[in-house]
């Protein structure tokens, strides 16, 4: 049943023969996969398996790194990201949350208001206030910072900065949200709260969840891909993978905790 509903969903991101190399050193590929609209797509795998590179390629961050070489195609909404004339507009559609939180050295308010301001979609002050509050609430940070919106975002605690980063990503009103091991700097209680938020957001955006916590993928992801040493070993329904029905033995071993 699950299969039939998902297959009818529209494909949001289509990845074809994607390979990534740094200098001459291959980091990932070739990868072929589809990510559907309004699903949580999990990516699991041990360190150095190319997960973060994968996200950077989707976001076209290779442009900013002279030694990062990307080949193959990534199509978002059926348009090849390479053919985008305005790569900044592409990135505005995609919100990103890093493993290590980066609160910019601006006030908490300005951190969240930055993306709409830069994009020129800030609207009136009242609209912006509302947006900032809504994003902070969704990121489960509002109650902690509502009295100090003028304080430097970069001086918040690690867990608070991480939620600030999530609020900032949401302020872009992204169509795609990419999270890269977001829970590293966050305590377990906050992690659970954010996970609840992600389940809620699923209806509004496509979420790519890169995680080193296998159980997190199990809890959240509709489908999961397993990356290992730069190879995409397997992609499947999360349920199937975690029920021991993975086709590749390495996937079973990783999920079963035999390595990683």
């Amino acid at each position: 049943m699950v299969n039939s509903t998902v297959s009818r969903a529209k494909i949001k991101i289509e990845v074809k023969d994607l390979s990534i190399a740094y200098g001459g050193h291959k980091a990932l590929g070739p990868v072929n996969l589809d990510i559907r609209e309004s699903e949580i797509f999990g990516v699991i795998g041990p360190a150095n398996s190319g997960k973060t590179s994968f996200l950077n390629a989707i976001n076209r961050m290779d442009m900013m790194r002279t030694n990062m070489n990307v080949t193959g195609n990534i199509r978002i909404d059926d348009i090849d990201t390479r053919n985008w004339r305005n790569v900044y507009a592409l990135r505005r559609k995609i919100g990103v949350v890093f493993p290590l939180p980066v609160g910019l050295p601006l006030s908490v308010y300005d951190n969240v208001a930055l993306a709409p301001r830069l994009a020129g979609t800030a609207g009136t002050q009242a609209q912006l206030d509302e947006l900032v509050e809504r994003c902070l609430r969704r990121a489960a940070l509002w109650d902690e910072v509502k009295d100090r919106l003028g304080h430097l975002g970069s001086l918040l605690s690690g867990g608070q900065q991480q939620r600030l980063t999530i609020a900032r990503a949401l302020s872009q009103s992204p169509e795609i949200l990419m999270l890269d091991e977001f829970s590293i700097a966050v305590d377990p209680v906050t992690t659970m709260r954010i996970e609840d938020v992600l389940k809620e957001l699923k209806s509004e955006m496509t979420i790519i969840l890169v995680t080193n916590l296998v159980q997190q993928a199990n809890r959240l992801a509709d489908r999961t891909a397993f990356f290992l040493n730069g190879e995409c070993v397997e992609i499947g329904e999360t349920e199937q993978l975690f029920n021991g029905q993975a086709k590749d033995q390495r996937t079973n071993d990783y999920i079963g905790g035999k390595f990683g």
Partner: protein
Amino acid sequence: MFEAAPINLQNEQVQNRFRLMFGGMMVILIIPVVIILATLVIKGWPAISWTFLFTDPTNGMTAGGIFPALFGTIWLVVVSLLASVPLGVAAAVYLSEYAPDNMLTRMINLATINLAGVPSIVHALFGVGAFVIFFRFGTSILAASLTLAIMTLPVIIVSSWESMQAVPRAFREACWNMGATRWQTIRTVVLPNAIPGILTGVILQVSRAAGETAPIMFTGAAMFLPFLPNSVFDQTMALALHLFVVATQVPDIPESLPFGVALVLVGIVLIMNTLAIWFRMRLRGKKKW
């Protein structure tokens, strides 16, 4: 618990002796300067007064004040900074934020190093050939200031570049991922956090530009002028050149006068440096991340 073995004890003594030796070298470096500064103050202080600072030289520069020279130096420094700061900071922005790791960037870096190493008198020749003659600015504040600007440019580039590099790369990445353009990232994250460092470098260049003599000698500074400059196309007197003139070209001058001029010049330099250091300390005290 353990007693020091004799060999270690001996090493300890050797070490202390060397510490003393290197400390001594440090002192050798500092002592002459202390003596020199003290002499400047002792011999120059009697000459310094409000009239000295704010009146014209009289009697063939053997008496009177230094106002036109002081005024001219301010002109020269301000105009040169107007040219060198925007250009230098922009060049640093390019090197820090845009430049790919290629041959051209390597050449820019080499050129910057060489520009800093070109002798000041060669800068003066360039100023004469380019600004005075080729661009027909004549000997003027404009020609002298532009010559000074090119001379101070490499240091402004390097210090601005360093301040921008001190801004963590993660901030830039966060901005880019939000869909900010490179320029928006520079404007919102890089420059605001680099500006205190850039300013420190600029203040140090003020003192350097104020003290330079050779580059302005033939491009715009005059030994003596009976009037103040009205525009950047006029010539001007300048403090550094004035010191050279009263020290070497004017006979029968009271000793305190050149010492007074030297003291004012060193005073300006030290005040600027102190300002820069104070600025840097404040910067370090204010933690933003």
